């Protein structure tokens, strides 16, 4: 049995429940005493920390959402002094600016602990050579898996994203056994490997994939396991919560969410009603140990189900199922969160462009392709192909800078894109996952 922290991971239900409640109470008290923003929310909702006596009482507490993290100034939001903050990361904003999240040393340790437990439960050990092909940097994917794998004692190959032929060369040269990347990227590596005559299944030591940051299906899982010989393990997390956090165990029937760190609820996004086990709804997360950025009843916007039954592996921590959708219009392209409002923000800052645009998403091979079609303003037309080309390049670059992905840009004639009377439907998503 592969495990990192057996005491916590296999804790009996009664003890777990007690511990979780103790942590929840401590968190609520701390927020009430030290977070003016959250105290105000609680006062408005007429809730006092003393009213939280059971886990179910969490339902009395006010929600938090992405808006809150964006709108508050760092000194209103962060509950740690500058001196105590040891790391910063960023998450996609909905307009031009990304949201910044901060971490104390304890926050980083808690995050790392969660990842180490997660990948260990999936069968990864200190004997493994783990290649991290998520983006390193302000995005939490790369550094999150890096620290978790390092904590577990694996050999870490910090490949980051891109350069697929080189990634495959390294997988072969170093005998890499585990890869952490998006599911579409693993499929893409499969395609590239065929082109260069490398058989991942038989010619490499790759046996596990820790795959997340975008939705994927059981169908994709089967193709990866059969075609590439790689056990496909789902992982979930977002920057606001810390980063990548919860991973499937070897049973592959949901991602274990550690009760000593997190309280999980599933809510009907329209009524606010808390739903029962197996019912599909919006994931609401409370991070019990987080210090710098409080996350309590945080509406993630992701739709999923949770299973509270004991897992085949023996762990009692609840299992989060695959994310099946969003409550808002956020898109995920190659593992990166993209809001149509971000695209609009970038396009509108170019005087040569009209007001109408369209986002077309396709997945011809393994990887997502995003095309942004935008109308040229008649006044901006010049009989100069070089100038039109450089306008395209400029838009491409600005989009890349704001969205962190490379989008194809098409200049179209004014009047050719659909107009809408009520809510614009600007996204055409042709992908079949």
């Amino acid at each position, binding site marked *: 049995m592969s495990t990192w922290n057996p005491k916590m991971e296999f804790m009996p239900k009664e003890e777990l429940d007690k511990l979780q409640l103790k942590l929840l109470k401590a968190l609520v008290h701390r927020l009430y005493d030290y977070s003016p923003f959250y105290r105000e929310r609680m006062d408005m909702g007429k809730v006092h920390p003393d009213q939280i006596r059971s886990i179910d009482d969490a339902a009395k507490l006010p929600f938090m959402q992405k808006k809150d993290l964006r709108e508050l100034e*760092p000194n209103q939001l962060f509950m740690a002094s*500058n*001196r105590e*903050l*040891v*790391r*910063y*990361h960023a998450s996609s904003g909905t307009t031009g*600016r*990304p949201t*910044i999240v*901060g971490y104390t040393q304890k926050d980083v340790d808690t995050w790392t602990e969660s990842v180490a437990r997660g990948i260990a439960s999936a069968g990864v050990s200190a*004997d493994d050579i783990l290649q991290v092909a998520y983006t*390193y*940097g*302000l995005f939490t994917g*790369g*550094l999150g898996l890096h620290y978790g794998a*390092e904590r577990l*004692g*694996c*050999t*870490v*190959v*910090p*490949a*980051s994203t*891109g*350069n697929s*032929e*080189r990634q495959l*060369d*390294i997988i072969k*040269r*170093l*005998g890499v056994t585990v890869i952490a990347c998006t599911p579409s990227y693993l499929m893409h590596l499969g395609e590239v490997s065929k082109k260069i005559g490398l058989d991942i299944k038989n010619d490499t030591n790759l046996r596990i994939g820790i795959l997340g940051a975008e939705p994927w299906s059981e169908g994709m899982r089967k193709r990866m396991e059969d075609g590439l010989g790689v056990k496909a393990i789902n992982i979930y997390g977002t920057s606001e919560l810390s980063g990548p956090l919860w991973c499937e165990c070897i049973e592959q029937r949901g991602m274990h969410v550690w009760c000593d760190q997190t309280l999980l609820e599933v809510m009907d996004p329209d009524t606010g009603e808390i739903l029962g086990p197996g019912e599909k709804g919006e994931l609401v997360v409370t991070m019990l140990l987080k210090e710098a950025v409080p996350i309590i009843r945080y509406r993630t916007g992701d739709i999923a189900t949770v299973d509270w039954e004991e897992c085949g592996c023996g762990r009692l921590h609840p299992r989060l199922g695959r994310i099946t959708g969003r409550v808002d219009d956020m898109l995920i392209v190659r593992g990166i969160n993209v809001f149509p409002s971000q695209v609009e923000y970038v396009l509108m800052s170019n005087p040569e462009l009209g007001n109408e645009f369209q986002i077309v998403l396709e997945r011809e091979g393994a990887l997502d392709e995003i095309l942004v079609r935008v109308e040229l303003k008649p006044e901006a037309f010049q009989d100069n192909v070089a100038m039109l080309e450089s306008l395209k390049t400029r838009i491409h670059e600005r989009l890349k*800078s704001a969205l*962190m992905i490379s989008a194809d840009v098409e200049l179209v004639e004014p009047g050719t894109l659909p107009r809408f009377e009520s809510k614009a439907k600007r996204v055409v998503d042709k992908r079949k996952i």
Partner: protein
Amino acid sequence: MAYWNPKIETMPIADLKALQLKNLRALVGRLYDNSPFYRHRMEQKGVVPDDIRTLEDTVKLPFMYKKDLRDYYPDKLFVASKREIVRYHASSGTTGKPTIVGYTRNDIETWSESLARALTSIGLGSDDVVQVANTYGLFTGGLGFHYAAEKIGAAVVPASTGNTERQIQLIQDLGVTALAATPSYMMYVGEVAQKMGVSIKTDTKLRVGLLGAEPWSDWMRDRIHDWLGVKGINCYGASELAGPLFSECEDQQGIHFWGDLTMLEILHPETQEPVGPGEKGEMVITMLTKEAFPLIRYRIGDISIMHEEKCSCGRTHPRISRITGRVDDMLIIRGINVFPSQVEYSLLTNPELGNEFQIVIDRKGALDDMLVKVELKPEAFTDNINQLNALRERVEGKLKNLLNVGVEIELVEPGSLPRFEGKAKRVVDRRMY
């Protein structure tokens, strides 16, 4: 004056040299016993470990070259068992494949210890916010500064490269006090900030630049200080050695090379004999405590001058002046090492291209621009502009993947580039700094 490791850093020179000798003898003994490759080299020179009784006896030991890292990797060079390797990184190879370097846990510890001493010697500590704008991933710049800044308790902003407007926003919003980057990028940040209406000097808390990976002049240092209000500290290192390792102290009297970890020799360019302090020559480096990937008398290719007197900061470890040149044809573009042979290798994989090419390097603004002119084969010409564009993009993409730096390709007419009778002079370097 703060010291990270006061005992070692201010050790009397005689004691330091004794420690150095002790470490050297241990290293030579270990390699002789465990590395068939190095033992064979020593046997060829007729030297055994017992022959090394004083530091002067170092000259009896064989050299190592970059070629060795490529030819003998991986099994003949590593002296740790694979299981002890906890990290891999890569450095630019001279042709098609990058050189892979491995690290044990102690190697990682030594690396961060070395750089932590360097950062502390500049006055950085737990009150600082360090933004790391070096590449994160297989290159050692990003993770190197990240781990060292983390070690000294500073807050780390893992920005990685690119997205300069956002970097500047972060510098303002997070109160960043130190930026790790190349010197040209530091200048570029200044330019972009100016366009954004931000004065780095008066609108931010940025005071220190940890600048290295490419040559830069006193003129640039003064400009960075006067215009941006930033103290530009020269940093040095290389992936083969570990990564970024050494820097100037606050007093800026040269870059401190930690004597307990490294032994530095300067060789006369013609006679290859060691020269005395104050004389210019080729640097030869021995990493005394490296485990996985030991380097003895490694001819790194940089030219400099060594000083052995105690520094005004109180540290007794030797210092080197600026790197004044290379012994080979290696280029440095935006801080990345590039060998013309790599360019040749990549271009030759494109059947549409002829054999003649030219590399033109310029620095019109703050950043290096690399242009590769290559002749199109007559058969490959097509009246389809889109096809020609696609060819150019394809060639650019391959080259960029190999070099890890952005490069522009210009397809030129066959016969239009200079031909050479003797050694081809393919590089036109117009930069002035």
